[in-house]
């Protein structure tokens, strides 16, 4: 998911209909530049070299999304194909998926296998402390900034719940909201990481960890 507003104009994106390094190619109607979908980068045309600003999003299943966002709207046009369900993770195996984040030439990814084992991983992204969290109930992964009090908070899964070590507050892994404890009501800032096929991720970001 990307912002369409650039400094000069609002872009309208369409499918250009080809594949470049395993990533779908988009075009914008305004300048006819080509953009790769995986990294939001203009690879050809007047805007070549520019990056679209990524918007945080989450890939999860419908019932889980609804549970946490009951007043959500849905973009819905009739469709028949029902193939992409949570069962693809079981079918293809957790090893086939990563949660990845990229910016310019930097990219980092965490395998679903490792995430399913640990639940919460403290890491760094572009020099800032981040939290990678995996909800085993819905097989959903998210990336958040770790807020600093004096030091950045560290998180653990305790009895299936996401808890920070410093204050003992309890956090909802999918929304990043503190539901109980001293920090209740606060929200972690989500970062624009995407759930991707492992092979597609490393084809587009060969230098990713």
């Amino acid at each position, binding site marked *: 998911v990307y912002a369409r507003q650039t400094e000069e104009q609002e872009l309208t994106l369409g499918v250009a209909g080809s594949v470049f390094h395993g990533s779908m190619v988009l075009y914008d109607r305004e300048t006819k530049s080509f953009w790769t979908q995986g990294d939001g980068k203009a690879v050809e045309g007047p805007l070549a070299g520019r990056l679209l600003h990524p918007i945080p999003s989450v890939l999860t299943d419908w019932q889980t999304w609804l549970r946490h966002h009951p007043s959500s709207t849905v973009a*819905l046009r009739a469709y028949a194909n029902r193939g992409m369900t949570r069962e693809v993770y079981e079918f293809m195996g957790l090893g086939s998926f990563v949660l990845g984040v990229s910016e310019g030439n930097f990219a980092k990814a965490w395998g679903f296998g490792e995430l399913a084992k640990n639940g919460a991983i403290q890491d760094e992204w572009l020099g800032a402390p981040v939290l990678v969290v995996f909800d085993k109930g819905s097989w959903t992964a998210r990336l958040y900034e770790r807020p600093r009090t004096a030091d950045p908070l560290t998180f653990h899964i305790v009895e299936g719940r996401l808890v920070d070590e410093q204050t003992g507050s309890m956090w909802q892994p999918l929304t990043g909201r503190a539901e109980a404890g001293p920090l209740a009501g606060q929200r972690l800032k989500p970062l624009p990481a995407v759930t991707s096929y492992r092979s597609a991720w490393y084809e587009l970001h060969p230098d990713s960890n």
Partner: protein
Amino acid sequence: MMENTIWRWWPVGTLAAGLVVLGLLVTALRLLASPLRSRRRWGFASLATLSAAVLVGHLSLTRLLRPEDFSGYTTPDASRSDGWTALFPPWTDCPIRPAAAASQINSLELVIGVELDGDARAYPVNMLNERAERKALNDVLGGQAIAVTF
């Protein structure tokens, strides 16, 4: 005529058709010259049938289909000086419904969820995945213009 990528290949098609006609003539002549019970006669006959099929196919494509027939696949406002023309116009008009009115989505289907400025919206992956031209949706959420892609 030239702005359409399919139509731009017409000289190649015409050349191919010419070769086929030439092949047909040669085959017919050799067929007439060969003895009636020769095995080669059947070889020539099948070659002639194949050539005729290709010719009929080519003629029906070029004569029966006009450039207008491809117009649904082109957007006249999206072509470049290098001859590239968009096959699909950008998708900008997806209906937005409250979640309660979306009973047709199965509970385990994957969705892309976005939350902007307090507004939450889900985009079913299967909807974005169904047709090539719907793999990118232009939307506005929380006052911000976004593109949702899968």
